[in-house]
């Protein structure tokens, strides 16, 4: 009985190791905001394929679901992928806020040109879809538009 147990333990450990994609990375995305006019901003940080189809949502700042439609690139991309945008939500963001979040992605997707995108919306001001677009494997830091100063991925 004893050797058998040992073998199955080893097999189990192997199987577990296989379940985690062997070539995957845990990355940190750092989104720095500039001056936010008026009230606080809603921000969506998400991963898409090169065409904008949402693959994963990393973080959404701003909890009121009824304002999420203003994060237009994110809503659009999620609609294209026919997956519901899951709501990884936190508080809406003010001026100078730095949003840090981690996500995991397979190497082959990085090689396929998957992107980290950031959308912003501020009440009474412009909704900015694609305020920043960072192509993984190519950029580590890009300048943003509107209220997004820059986005970095390490």
């Amino acid at each position: 009985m004893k050797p058998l147990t040992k073998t199955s333990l080893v097999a189990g450990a192997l199987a577990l190791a296989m379940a985690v994609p062997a070539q995957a990375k845990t990355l940190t995305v750092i989104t720095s905001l500039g001056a936010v006019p008026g009230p606080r901003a809603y921000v969506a940080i998400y991963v898409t394929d090169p065409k904008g189809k949402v693959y994963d949502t990393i973080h959404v700042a701003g909890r009121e679901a009824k304002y999420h439609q203003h994060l237009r690139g994110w809503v659009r991309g999620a609609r294209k992928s026919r997956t519901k945008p899951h709501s990884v939500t936190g508080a809406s963001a003010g001026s100078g806020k730095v949003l840090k979040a981690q996500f995991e992605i397979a190497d082959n997707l990085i090689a396929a040109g998957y992107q980290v995108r950031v959308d912003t919306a501020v009440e009474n001001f412009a909704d900015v879809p694609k305020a920043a677009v960072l192509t993984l494997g190519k950029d580590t830091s890009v300048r943003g538009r509107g209220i997004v100063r820059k986005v970095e991925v390490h």
Partner: protein
Amino acid sequence: MQSARSLHRWVSYGAILPGLLLAVTGVALSLMPLNEAVSTGSLTPAADVSVADVASAIARDVPGVERIAKSANHTITADFFHADTFGSVVFDPATGNISPKPEPTGMWGTLKSLHRSLFLGDIGRGVTGLTALSMLFLSVTGVWIIVSRMGGWRALISPPATRGWKLVHFQAIRIALAGLAITSLSGVVMSLSSFSLLPSTNTPEPLFPDLSGAQMIAIAQMEALQSTPLSQFRELIFPFDGDPTEPFMLATNSGVAFVDPATGQITAFEPKSLWGHLYELVYLLHTGQGAWWIGLLMGLSICAAPVAVASGVALVLTRPKSPLSGIKIAPASRAKDVILVGSEGGTTWIFAAELARKLTEAGRAVHVAAINDMRENYPKADNLFFFAATYGQGEAPESAHQFDKVFAKFERKDIAVSVLGFGDRSYPEFCGFAQYISAQAKRAGFECLDELTLIDRQSLQAFAAWGAQIGEKLGISLTLAPRLATTAPTHLTLLRNTRLGEEVGAPVSILRFEIPNKGFAKFGAGDLLGILPPGSDVPRFYSLASSTKDGFLEICVRRQEGGLCSTHLTQLVPGARIKAFIKPNPQFRPARNSNPMILIGAGAGIGPLMGFLRGSKGVKPAHLFWGGRSEQSDFLYQGELKTCVETGQLTQLSTAFSRDQSPAYVQTRLKEQSSEVARLISEGAEILICGGVNMAQDVARTLDEILMPNGTSVAQLKSQKRYLEDVY
């Protein structure tokens, strides 16, 4: 009716403070659309230009423009992001002028936030939503009370016939009603929507189009924008920062479209849902945003709401004096004598008050309360008096519904009980509830101060005799003489005077009076209203066409040549007052069963018959034979009778007019339908007749002819109390 009124009152108590706040801030906010229209110059309609004209002008003068929007008030604003700053400007399509967007002044924002949420966030929004719901409820029940009290929808627009605070309250409500109903209904919808309890009103984006990605053409050349007039325009979102992979998003009155910047054509369109259109109407009605004059009208209407509240408070404070006022009532803990009252209409309270007054004058400590409010103990009491009226078939009246519960909890048995019943011997179950109390008291082992005494039809003699007997037992002299509405005339206010028959020389009026107060005697259709004409102490009696339950007093009066009282009455205008009292007439009313009734009358004699019809509520099949002069001129209650026929409350209506093309009298109609009449009588129908002596004689003769073959007669029916006449 009563319960609707008390529900109305309790809801208004609860909603009074937030309701006032919403009304006052709402009135102030009603000026906002006009203020905006004036300050931005959009008071005059926008010139009829296309979105392409406007957008290209703005794109030329505002670098970094990313959004152009037209507010509900037709103000056009452009938002831009240029040199790392966001900003907004206002564009005047008539002149092409661009000016900085005026700072939203603090006052409007503060008012709006107070009106929306009382500065309390979601809790405040919940409170205002519930308040709007209460206002809606009050508007509906208010209309219902007015309509049912005044007897018809016309009451909402006809001149009111009350005075004092009631008049102010009524007028203010009429003015406020439209505004309140509309803004509260729309407010409820908006509140539900803000809590996401209604489907979303936003039109979703159409599916994102595939774009050619080619060079953007000039905005002025884009066909989608050229073909959209400014009047249809809502919003245009530019590709941010000239992003070539982004389309223009164009929102119009009818939906949301994507426009390809390379072709200027619409590539995808999502129409606005029906609900979205509806919600915009709701929003327009509530805020006046987009039609400043609607805002002003609503504001003006709701101005009357605080007046309605103030006069309503005044009404409650000045309600008719209780019969107990002026009597020094002892607290329950010290009372020697306790009087517990079970009353439906309030008359029993007058008797109770009289006993309390006389006992107090004799130096005894007396406590008076409703039977429902009976305590578990009266530690100092020697005597417990129950004054009990009866409701319906021997049931407990309103203020004694809790009798069984409170009586079972009562702790002392060493107290002498006296039960006095009030009722009408002509009804079955005479004083049924008083008999029940007496039996319960005996069973529980209470000592009886005296035997159960029953007072028939408010008999003052019987009450005085009972008082003398009680006084003897208590060792005091007790002379009881209550002043009832039936003995003392009361002022009645005329609500309306419907005048008919002038053209055919038979002027007749349907006069409706207000029931003056709670203590006013209860009355039924067929009872008599004794009216004292000015300058005369001799009353004239008119049969009542209504009962207490109808909520008003109504009589039909035919103007007699040279008749002092009838001439006076038929010329009264709403608001006029007369002196009158009730004289019960229990001999003339339908039996309380479900047998059919044949109602026969002529002219003003329809009054009590109409009252019986109103009171039967369809329980008794009713056949009405009525004669007048001309269908065009003196057809009394024409509309209400037709409704009764439609609802089935009146099985058959047979009218005869003596001056119309084929002249006929009621007896003509009776003969025509003799077999039906005979059948009804054989089935136990009773006959109630009201009108002049001659008509009554003719009708009796005709009915005898009809009944002869069946071996019965009018005389026989009379002996069975199935043939009742009220003849003048």
